[in-house]
């Protein structure tokens, strides 16, 4: 543990509400390298409150990289400079004395800004509601060990299921595509025997809603994978595209 504080200049995006125009405001801070990025913002907010000024609105909850609530663009990168962590897991020891840090909200057409660094990501839930589930009612299910699932398949499904729904993939993409997020859910179920009955219907419904909410299309630049805090693989996008293609074939067959 080091006790030397870092002196930093922060340029933080402040915006009163969705309609107003935002600007960067500057704050000078001295912060312990052991502090987390969000603890630094807590400190600034306490200082602002002491001066009866409005604290910076930003969201977080678990502060362990699992709930997906936090999400800031730090020096142009969603979740900041360190790969495979969420904003709340970023610690100040990764910055240098004298650094200037730009802090902005996730930006995408489908994520309107609510206030300062807080955005509305509810479109992601609408996609999930459209089909991101397996249709079983409570009770009347077989024993958990009735269907053996090979270890590697189960863990591939688990890897896809690790998505925390933070939306960094959308914020990272120049087209604001949600393909990585949607494909993670599609893949989790497509890999498992339980997911087969609804496999094609699922992907179709989810993609439909995804398009309705103004998420862009995927042009294979892989920025999403690079910024994803959980390392969700773009292999999932390929799997989803295949399934979507199959789904279209099937429905067209039916309609023909």
């Amino acid at each position: 543990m080091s006790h030397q504080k870092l002196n930093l200049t922060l340029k933080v995006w402040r915006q009163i509400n969705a309609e107003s125009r935002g600007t960067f405001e500057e704050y000078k801070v001295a912060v312990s390298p052991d502090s987390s990025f969000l603890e630094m913002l807590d400190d600034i907010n306490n200082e602002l409150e002491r001066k009866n000024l409005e604290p910076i609105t930003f969201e977080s909850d678990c502060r362990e990289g699992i709930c997906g609530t936090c999400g800031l663009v730090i020096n142009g990168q969603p979740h900041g400079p360190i790969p495979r962590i969420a904003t709340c897991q970023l610690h100040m020891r990764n910055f240098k004395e004298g650094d200037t840090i730009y802090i902005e909200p996730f930006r995408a057409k489908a994520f309107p800004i609510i206030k300062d660094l807080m955005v509305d990501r509810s479109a992601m839930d609408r996609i999930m509601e459209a089909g991101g589930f397996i249709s079983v009612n409570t009770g009347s299910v077989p024993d958990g060990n009735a269907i053996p699932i090979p270890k590697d398949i189960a863990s591939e499904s688990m890897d896809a299921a690790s998505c925390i729904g933070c939306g960094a993939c959308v914020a990272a993409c120049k087209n604001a595509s949600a393909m990585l997020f949607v494909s993670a859910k599609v893949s989790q179920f497509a890999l498992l025997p339980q997911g087969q009955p609804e496999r094609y219907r699922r992907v179709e419904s989810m993609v439909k809603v995804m398009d309705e909410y103004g998420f862009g299309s995927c042009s294979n630049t892989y920025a999403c994978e690079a910024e994803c805090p959980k390392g969700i693989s773009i292999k999932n996008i390929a799997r989803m595209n295949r399934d979507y293609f199959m789904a279209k074939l099937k429905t067209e067959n039916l309609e023909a």
Partner: protein
Amino acid sequence: MIKLDSKVPEGKLEEKWTNHKFNMKLVNPANKRKYDIIVVGTGLAGASAAASLGELGYNVKAFTFHDSARRAHSIAAQGGINAAKNYQNDGDSVYRLFYDTVKGGDFRSREANVYRLAEVSNNIIDQCVAQGVPFARDYGGLLDNRSFGGALVSRTFYAKGQTGQQLLLGAYTAMNRQVNLGTVKLYTRREMLDVVVVDGIAKGIVVRNMLTGEIEKYSAHAVILATGGYANTYFLSTSAMNCNVTAIWRAHKKGAAFANPCFTQIHPTCLPVHGENQSKLTLMSESLRNDGRIWVSKIKNDMRKPNDIPEEERDYFLERKYPTYGNLSPRDISSRAAKEAYDDGRGAQGQEAVYLDFQEAINRLGKKVIEERYGNLFEIYQTITGDNPYEVPMKIYPAPHYTMGGLWVDYNLMSTIPGLFVAGEANFSDHGANRLGASALMQGLADGYFIIPYTIGNYLAGDKPILVQTDHPEFNKVQKEIEDFISKLLSIKGKKTVDDFHKQLGRIMWNKVGMGRNEKGLKEAIEEIRQLRKEFWKDVNVVGVSNDVNQCLERAGRVADYLELGELMALDALNRNESCGGHFREEYQTPEGEALRNDEEYTFVSAWEFKDVGKWELNKEPLEFESIKLATRSYK
């Protein structure tokens, strides 16, 4: 005086739930959609209840203060979920899970509830598998298990180190399916600020829309609170930043008895505090204790680096004190042992910390196996501390983690306000004075999937509650109270921040109502909290306005409630003149420093009735043990 009727069904322990299910009244399927049910909270308990009730055909309104139901604090649970499947053929059974849970809870829980919990545990696993929860599997493709503290069998199911996430996403997807089908209507970014009670019966809730600040009213035939625990009273805890007690506290003030508020769990394996501006504490999953060994130096004030301390100068204190359970001793016992070592001047490099060491396991099993088992936990550790646990032992220390106390409920999970049900960590029901690892997820899902859907039907069919419209004078009265409360907070304009008060309260709680408690300290705590509460209402500064997004206001309301609850926690601890589970009264211990229960006088649930701020009346629900003999809890 409240009448506490536990409504535990007659008959043999093993038959109670089955008989009760049979005897309960049923709602005609065609009438279910005419019943409105409010579910507050979309964690494991709330989401599973909302989904199951929606499937049954009820008209469900689900509320959460999060922007998405998927963000509930359940998402953060790492280690696993228990079930009595006995897949490992190691002698597990419903009875053993029941027994371990009652014993783990230090004989301060209700037998019938715990037995039912163990009974439905197996259904939970089946349900989750069917939903597509990717539990860990063995090479044969079958479900894998591991061991957790307080058990000698391997009954914990897990999904990497992200079990809570996967279980919550399972319940979330089941609920989303109902949202899609129109049986569940979801209200996000709404903070429930009060229940509305008409003629003694719960009829709805009042919430604040966190985007517009509007105070909204919702009515229903029954209300379920599944709003989680209150460990954030300590300011620093493993709970998420926004976890709070407001929903159940306001219900308590409207007449719901609060049970065993002093039973809090201090978890042994958390990351130590790094400094003044620390915002929360991070849990390192207890599963690490399967392979990690806990130790401190035998020498006081030993400032050597851990790897420079030779084997013979290390004290593996859990293995020494509790040879049978060793590093897997229950949480309360392990935490206290760590505190003892620190108090003895043997903390890791002088800090409030002990070592959790994997060297022996790495030598025995190889780095690859350890990486497979704990890779992501090790990564988390390294990200936060900058140290590599493959090379240097972890430093850990106990931290507030879970609250066994909560609103008092009967066997049907109904509080002392008819029509108000409580599920998950928010109720007091199953864990007694100490919760075993991997049992909270089990309880949350048991309540939501398999218990409340039955018992609420019984209430609706039996009591035939009527719907009260939201223009009823009582709704308007509560709305007005909330608006006044908010105006008052905003008008104080004092000099201290909300966090200043919360941190100050946290320090009082941790020092005097924490791992070790005594009469003098508790009396001081009560005085100090009262003082702090007065000061809060004179000197806090809540910045901003009410009709806008205002996180400062949100926090202020929650801290106002902690400042009342904190006093009750201390009062309950003062009243309980014994040591049991997480409640350790220093006056009551054996010569070896173990907890000394007083079964004669304290085999009861304390259910506190709210009279006024700082004034309560104690009601007691006696606990009867028919199936298990009260015994001294030994893990030696």
